[in-house]
């Protein structure tokens, strides 16, 4: 089939479509409003909940910071506070960047590129999240033990001998599962880019 014939077929189809009845006003607004609510709920909630948990914990540690007397616990507490403050910001920022792709503003070629780049950025943040999350496994316990006045269990080598391998093993499997999910997202972005 030649292109001219395709164009003529397309023109026929366009004419036919133009003859269709107008979509009803009520239905149109129903579609729009329902989609709007769905999007808002689906995207914002899980990330916001995670961030709130991190911030509550960071605030708690910060409020108890003056009670810490041991210098290494002060360092550990600071590291934990920093991680729990910066990571959610970075993660939310990466998501914001993904969502900021302007469907109504950018041309498709630019939009695809921005979309893929912001997904890659998100992926990087998640990887750092795993690394720092593993670090938090160590830094979070000693300051809490001092605050609670129960330093005995963390001074026992046996505790660390069990806690650390178990914690790291959990982190390994959890991050493998989570990063696997994100990898799928990244691959689809790369596929989109490669199609350009």
């Amino acid at each position, binding site marked *: 089939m030649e292109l001219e014939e395709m164009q003529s077929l397309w023109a026929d189809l366009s004419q036919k479509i133009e003859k269709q009845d107008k979509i009803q006003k009520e239905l149109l607004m129903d579609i729009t409003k329902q989609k709007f609510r769905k999007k808002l709920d689906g995207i914002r909630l899980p990330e916001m909940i995670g961030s709130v948990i991190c911030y509550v914990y960071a605030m708690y540690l910060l409020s108890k910071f003056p009670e810490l007397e041991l210098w290494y616990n002060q360092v550990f507490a600071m590291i934990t506070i920093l991680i729990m403050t910066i990571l959610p910001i970075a993660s939310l920022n990466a998501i914001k960047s993904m969502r900021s792709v302007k469907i109504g*503003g950018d*041309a498709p070629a630019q939009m695809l590129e921005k979309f893929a780049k912001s997904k890659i950025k998100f992926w990087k943040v998640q990887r750092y999240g795993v690394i720092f999350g593993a670090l938090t496994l160590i830094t979070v316990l000693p300051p809490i033990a001092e605050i609670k006045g129960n330093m005995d269990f963390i001074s026992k080598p046996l505790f660390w001998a069990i806690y650390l391998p178990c914690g790291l093993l959990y982190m390994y499997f959890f991050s493998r599962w989570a990063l696997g999910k994100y990898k799928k997202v990244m691959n689809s972005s790369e596929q989109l880019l490669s199609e350009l």
Partner: protein
Amino acid sequence: MSKEEEFIHLIQENQGLIYKITLIYSKEKDEQDDLYQEIVYQTWKSFDQFKRASKPSTWLYRVGMNTAITHLNKSKKKPLMVSMDQTLFNYSEPMDSKKDEKIQWLYAQIRKLNLLDRGIMFLFLEGKNYEEIGQITGVSTSNVGTRMSRIKQKLKSEATPKPTKIWN
């Protein structure tokens, strides 16, 4: 005219365009309906940008195509929230069967192209020139030309329409 009325007017005037985008970017009826809803939603969401747009048609093509591309990327089948039975899009309206067959073949060929080329081919069939296609897709005019020749070659290499049923 209120914002809502302006929006309804825009969609009603361009519902054919949105419908055609759903046809070239998705195959199944459910996917098409879902994509139609998504385009309507995205149009509403960015409606303020439309008011500032110098060329409303260019803007609407962009919104439609961008939505289709991102929607396909998610590729998750979700249940429809609003039934589209009332939209009165009648696929099964009797047509010249040979012509209908050819149109279905044409859709199938377009859907074989990659996402951007699909959009370029769609705009070409809509009667846009290379410059307009470039403006809408963000691809340079010369690149549009190159892509179009590749698309032509690809379409030519395909066999002539075979009697296949693409959808119900």
